[in-house]
């Protein structure tokens, strides 16, 4: 893997992403041609175009980009740390845990899902994080039996997932029908609140965590060689593993706060990245982040336009596309 090729891959992905963003911004109920999108950016658009673009499309686009990248990096770290190709924040129950906390918060402290009040937007991600960490702690603790074995971790994750879902449905059926529908959609994955406040709360920490993950990627590479090898190379394995897990869970929690329980994105993006740039994390993580962002923007565009004026939530599109790939991976691995 030469450095030039990596730069080439990143450039191509980045161009493709920009292209998709432009296309996606111009599609929707109000059509804005790509040229007009550019014009509006430099302040030459009509008021209507500015309103649609800056107040509605752009914030949800920015969220899509960072939620996609966040989930992808979270999955990449989880796969590295657990040395399991099938790890993903969704499978391990972390997404459901975060979703559970958010639904509880809305159920007890907010009137309805459609109107999360001003301060609520800042508190909601906090709840998502608490839920994500709670779920991760439960999974880790319940899978602990003189160490954590990757298969046991995943099976326990499935169990914890089912448990959270069961308790969730008890609260869900008590909601009014409109909230029920929205909760259902959101739990399947939906960029539900496209507004700048949420962008401000969610994006900086996601960026920070992704940056940190890339900075620490060499440690991840060494950890992939196995516990004894990494200890020999001077890494405190348990401590490093815990730090990385916290990093991955934090990313997943923040992503869920903005995008709901999007399944399998964190699993598929790192796999594709590994195919393109190889297993080295310092290259794989940025590539996975870009692929995750592309994936989510494309899925969001498809979901919003395929049966317009109705919308399919982005998580459902992601799940339909990535499940076959997951099953294929499942059949391939020993």
């Amino acid at each position, binding site marked *: 893997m030469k450095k030039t090729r990596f730069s080439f891959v990143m450039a191509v992905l980045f161009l493709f992403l920009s292209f998709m963003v432009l296309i996606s911004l111009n599609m929707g109920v109000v059509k804005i041609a790509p040229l007009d999108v550019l014009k509006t950016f430099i302040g030459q658009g009509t008021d209507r175009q500015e309103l649609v673009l800056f107040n509605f499309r752009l914030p949800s686009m920015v969220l899509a980009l960072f939620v996609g990248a966040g989930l992808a990096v979270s999955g990449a770290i989880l796969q590295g740390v657990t040395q399991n190709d099938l790890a993903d924040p969704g499978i391990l129950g972390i997404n459901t845990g975060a979703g559970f906390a958010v639904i509880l918060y809305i159920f007890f402290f907010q009137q309805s899902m459609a109107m999360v009040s001003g301060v609520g937007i800042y508190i909601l991600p906090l709840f998502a994080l608490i839920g994500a960490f709670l779920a991760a702690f439960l999974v880790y603790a319940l*899978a602990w039996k003189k160490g954590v074995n990757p298969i046991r971790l995943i099976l326990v994750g499935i169990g914890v997932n089912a448990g959270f879902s*069961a308790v969730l449905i008890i609260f869900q059926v008590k909601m009014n029908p409109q909230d029920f529908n929205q909760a259902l959609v959101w739990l*399947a994955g939906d960029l539900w609140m496209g507004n700048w406040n949420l962008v401000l709360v969610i994006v900086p920490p996601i960026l920070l965590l992704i940056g940190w993950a890339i900075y620490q990627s060499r440690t991840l590479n060494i950890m992939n060689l196995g516990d004894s090898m990494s200890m020999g190379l001077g890494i405190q394995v348990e401590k490093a593993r815990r730090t990385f897990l916290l990093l991955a869970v934090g990313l997943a929690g923040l992503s869920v706060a903005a995008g709901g329980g999007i399944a399998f994105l964190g699993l598929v993006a790192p796999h594709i990245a590994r195919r393109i740039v190889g297993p080295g994390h310092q290259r794989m993580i940025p590539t996975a982040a870009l692929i995750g962002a592309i994936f989510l923007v494309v899925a969001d565009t498809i979901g919003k336009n395929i049966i317009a004026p109705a919308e399919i939530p982005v998580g459902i599109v992601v799940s339909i596309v990535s*499940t076959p790939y997951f099953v294929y991976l499942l059949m391939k691995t020993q």
Partner: protein
Amino acid sequence: MEERTREANKEWNEVTRKVWRAAFLFTGGIILLAVTMALSISVGVTDISIRTVWESVFAFAPESTSHAVVRELRMPRALAGALVGAFLAVSGAVMQGLTRNPLASPSIMGVTHGAAFALILTIVFFPAVSNIGMTAAAFVGAGLGVILVFAVGAFSKGGLTPAKLALAGVAIGGMLSSLSSAISLHFQVAKQMSFWYAGGLAATDWVSIQILLVAGVVGLTLAVLISKSVTILSLGDEVSKGLGQNTFLVKALGVIVVFVLTGAAVSVAGTVGFIGLVIPHVARFFVGSDYRLIIPVSAVLGSLLLVLSDIGARLVNAPYETPVGAITACIGVPFFLYLARGEGRGSL
């Protein structure tokens, strides 16, 4: 020589003990089931005394509202609980025997999700469909679910390990429920869909009972007929072939049992999870590895569990109903975790 006779005697005693234990569990279970069903009929928004329940069966007075409630609502509900519980438990037992996989069960393998998906499609595209049509759709969907998961197993390297099975089931189930959500949101039938995904017995009537009875006669009889072959198959394909068994036939019949029973159960009660996972393990714990004993004991214990869970669903948050699937999950999840940690017999 004497040593060997003693050994054989001991083994024989062990076998008879298990048969006796199974007989005891079976009859005791049925008596207990009768009691809990009576309880289930009497408990509800308005409590109806056991005496009135008795009268409404044996001295029916058409003008009494409580008699009508018992006959038209509570009795079908209790019966449906018993039948659906038995169906799911027997499905799970047959699946575990055929796949030799301790995690095999209708809900984990995506069979219930297949049935629910087919039901959603039917509601959306044929809104005027009859109950029988719905059940037929559920059969097809359940069959598709079974075939899909078995296909994943057949084509995967190193066979279907318990972890892979669970993952394949979760993935396929997740995709089917995503598709169902998309369809139901688009056609605005999300409410019906939520009913099937939460699982519940509140809407059962006598027509559902008729459907369940027909499916039960076919499915349970077939299950009992193949139980001996399933026992042999559960020792491994080679053993089974060595003993001159037509392995393919047994597996095919087993798959039929699974989709008839699961399809009927889902079309009446929605996706009630974990009964098919937990109950066969409990039965195996008491009566050993002979499916001629496991299947009937599972049926009775499954009935008991679902009728009790249904009573719980009405009491936990009265006067509102809690989805019965949530109750069975609360029992099933700890058990699943116990299996996942590889403790107890039949470990992974």
